[in-house]
């Protein structure tokens, strides 16, 4: 934007829109002339794919004689597996009385009787929903993944917090770990670690480690240098400084790291069960393959409940005054439920009694069937209108344009929005995609993402503005947004599938539901933080509410809105890839196909890499606008 301003000022006196409009005209003209040439059509048997498939076969054949597997990867698998078995057997041995009692006690210690009540109610909910065993399996899997994530993440985070060089080395790795759609690394992961609980735990760790590292690093780097110097001047060794100064002072922020790690791990539960990790995810997958929302919903609710319980417990640690010590009374009070629970183990059945469960499968299915038949006209209209008006024209535009023209357009837009360095990164990613041989599918995925982002931003802006202007609306909306963010994304797929059939629009709908909440939050926040004097000045000079919004609040909230766009894009991309399961096709389907058909492994792997490149490209194009280095705080509640 600054470059146009400069050129406009320097003599020619062109209007501000002249340069972009001129570029657009040139690009459009080039499209008309070169349309249909150099389009890089998709080929299922591209040499790139076949080479990767062959590599996979080779690795698979040498799994039991290659030293890398024998002395390294297989041991990791065995170690994680043994740890998981330990967690699982302990939890199952406790049975429901034991787990309820112990969770209640831990919650009491963390945050007093209120939190303890939440924990006991939450744990009982697993039983009432009829999902006791799956919930315990999930708890064991999440427990292992979180424990190991912290065991690796906290030391690395401390190191990154203390040394700027370490931080620079770690950051790009974390970026890739977070931007990569979780779906995309399942197939390669299954190749190295096979399937089952250990592989599931490792997949979860890949996703849960980055926040552990980032937040720990932040916590350590924020420790006041005065305290550190004081300790050094008193002759403390480096180790003493670390253990006695850094860690205690960073404690509360590090509790936040634990909290975020748990939340991330919970959001991987469904994905992990695609490679046969036990737990609630299995129920959701079953619901998806039977097309029964009634099976999926209770499992989704159980995951949300688990998230709420663990969130309250860890947030209570974050909020606690670091100087209070545990009182003996609290210890006693916490001991009672724990002791009661453990004492009741032999008396009560281990599994939740069936008579105390409620079964809502049939009711939920009926409700969905009703909506399906009665909303048919509306949903078909929405689907067809979007598909024929936006999706199909844009897709044919992108797939019929020569690849160099698309690259040129990306370079121009990125340069203008985010500056030359990021524009060159974006261009490099795009060229990488072309070399990988998945150009056509990438263009199709990009179309779906673009339409989804457009809808997300429109809806997010409307809701965000409404929430900023009416506190009551905001209060009503907030819990809904919270639930939408914690609910596993897969749960949205099914109602969307019922309403819209197996189409790209289904994926778009699911990703809009998934990505709208953070956009709403950012927009609401952006408008709210416009300084009150500015608003008052505008009002006192006679602005109508409409003028106030369009001329003052929205322009001043621009950075927040651009950040919202950036986040929306990354989240939407992740969801569109999952949409490959239900008709969204393109890169997402290539990935799905890659881990369900062995002959397509190469294509799936390459498509996964391409998704990462596409994600980085879209991120870089939009990132410069808000000047934040790595704005991905998904699922912050």
């Amino acid at each position, binding site marked *: 934007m600054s470059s146009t301003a400069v050129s406009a000022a320097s003599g020619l006196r062109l209007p501000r829109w002249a340069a972009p409009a001129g570029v657009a005209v040139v690009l459009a003209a080039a499209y008309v002339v070169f349309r249909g040439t150099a389009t890089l059509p998709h080929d299922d048997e591209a040499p790139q794919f076949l080479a990767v498939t062959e590599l996979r076969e080779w690795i698979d054949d040498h799994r039991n004689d290659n030293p890398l597997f024998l002395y390294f990867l297989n041991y990791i698998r065995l170690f994680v597996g043994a740890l998981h078995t330990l967690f699982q057997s302990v939890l199952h041995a406790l049975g429901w009385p034991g787990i309820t009692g112990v969770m209640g006690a831990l919650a009491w210690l963390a945050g007093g009787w209120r939190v303890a009540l939440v924990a006991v109610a939450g744990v009982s909910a697993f039983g009432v929903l009829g999902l006791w065993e799956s919930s315990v399996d999930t708890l064991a899997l999440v427990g292992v993944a979180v424990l190991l994530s912290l065991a690796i993440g906290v030391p690395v985070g401390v190191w990154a917090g203390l040394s700027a060089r370490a931080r620079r080395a770690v950051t790009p790795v974390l970026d890739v770990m977070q931007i990569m759609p979780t779906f995309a690394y399942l197939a390669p992961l299954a190749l190295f670690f096979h399937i089952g609980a250990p592989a599931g735990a490792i997949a979860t760790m890949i996703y849960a480690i980055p926040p552990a590292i980032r937040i720990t690093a932040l916590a350590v780097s924020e420790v006041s240098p005065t305290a550190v110097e004081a300790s050094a001047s008193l002759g403390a060794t480096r180790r003493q400084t670390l253990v006695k100064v850094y860690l205690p002072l960073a404690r509360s922020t590090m509790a936040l790291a634990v909290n975020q790690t748990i939340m991330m791990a919970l959001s991987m539960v469904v994905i992990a069960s695609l490679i046969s990790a036990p737990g609630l995810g299995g129920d959701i997958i079953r619901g998806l393959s039977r097309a029964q929302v009634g099976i999926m919903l209770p499992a989704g609710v159980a995951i949300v409940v688990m998230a709420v319980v663990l969130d309250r417990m860890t947030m209570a640690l974050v909020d606690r005054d670091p100087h209070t010590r545990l009182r003996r009374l609290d210890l006693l009070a916490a001991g009672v439920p724990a002791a009661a629970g453990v004492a009741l183990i032999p008396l009560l059945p281990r599994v939740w009694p069936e008579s105390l469960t409620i079964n809502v499968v049939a009711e939920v299915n009926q409700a969905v069937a009703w909506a399906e038949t009665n909303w048919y006209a509306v949903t078909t209209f929405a689907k067809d209108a979007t598909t024929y008006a936006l999706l199909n024209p844009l897709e044919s535009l992108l797939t019929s344009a020569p690849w160099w023209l698309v690259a040129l357009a990306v370079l121009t837009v990125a340069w203008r929005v985010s500056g030359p360095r990021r524009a060159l990164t974006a261009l490099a990613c795009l060229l990488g995609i072309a070399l990988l041989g998945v150009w056509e599918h990438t263009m199709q995925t990009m179309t779906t993402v673009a339409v989804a982002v457009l809808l997300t931003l429109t809806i997010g802006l409307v809701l965000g503005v409404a929430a900023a202007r009416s506190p009551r609306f905001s209060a009503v909306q907030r819990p809904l947004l919270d639930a939408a963010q914690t609910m596993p994304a897969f749960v949205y797929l099914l109602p969307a599938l019922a309403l819209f059939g*197996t189409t790209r629009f289904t994926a778009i709908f699911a990703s809009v539901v998934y990505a709208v909440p953070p956009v709403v939050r950012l927009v609401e926040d952006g408008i709210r933080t416009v300084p009150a004097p500015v608003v008052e000045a505008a009002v006192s000079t006679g602005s109508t509410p409409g003028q106030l919004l369009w001329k003052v609040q929205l322009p001043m909230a621009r950075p927040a809105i651009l950040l919202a766009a950036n986040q929306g894009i990354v989240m939407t991309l992740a969801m569109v890839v999952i949409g490959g399961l239900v008709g969204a096709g393109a890169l997402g389907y290539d990935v799905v196909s890659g881990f369900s058909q062995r002959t397509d492994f190469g294509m799936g792997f390459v498509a996964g890499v391409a998704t990462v490149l596409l994600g980085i490209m879209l991120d870089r194009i939009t990132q410069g606008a808000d000047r934040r280095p790595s704005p991905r705080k998904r699922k912050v509640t």
Partner: protein
Amino acid sequence: MKIRLLAGLVALGLAATGCGGATVDGTAGSSAPTGGAGASAGPSGTVKIAINPWVGYEASANVVAYLLENELGHDVELPEIKEQLAWEGFETGDVDVIIENWGHPDLKKQFIEEKKVAVEAGSTGNKGVIGWYIPKWMADEYPGITDYRNLNKYAELFRTSESGDQGQLLFGDPSYVSNEDALIRNLKLDYKVVVGGSEAALIKSAQQAQEQRRPLLFYFWDPHWLFSETELVRVNLPPYTEGCDADPKKVACDYPEMDLDKIVSKRFADTGGKAYELVKNFSWTNEHQNAVADDMTNGGMTGEEAAKKWVEANPSVWQAWIPK
């Protein structure tokens, strides 16, 4: 720091297993833990039957699971695992039994002959055929539509918002056995495969197509309960001849009629005792499977309830499976 930590883990592992190196099934290291939650199926141990994503399979699995639990006193786990991944489960101990296997000669070669982690456990008694189907009203209305040579003539009928200017061929779960892409390419059909994602998507589309007289060409298979409710007609592709599907990229013929069979892990065959005998003896007809699957899909029953109903109604059939 990370590397040092991992190195420490490896060192620990090495110490624990006496430097033997570890294979994935955990048998090489003498003390490698194989999972107390039931990796090995001893007498009265846990039997893990993989659940592939179609209801006929689930019907068989639930009946076998019911008998294992109630007649032989085993615990049974039914993890959701898709076809090809389930074979890997034989290697890791996550799967003991695949109760209904559709062909997969390549996997048999790899896991039975080369890796020797699985063995065949005989036929299920079910005959399986995959094919392309249309609702019956279309066969009545459009002469010759059931011949693949005429499909291009009618391609326009099958256009949807997802298939663009080609006809749509609706496919099911991405993990299903599939020659669709090769068939379309090699028979030069003007069609595009659109993936529905699940069996349920196929069933619903087929029902709507017949009731609302909407055109639909879709991938489906027999045995399936849907045939007794909705009239479907199979499209004739070039007939199957021995070996015409040998090269998956060059397939230009219909699917063969397959003798569906059971595959079990080597470990389960060796140590499963009576449970293994029962799985091996299990054999029933397409009608039996359809009855259970119908109860599960349309009768509102869980797999366990439907299995119980069938078991109570057909003692003479299953009593022959119970090992003496």
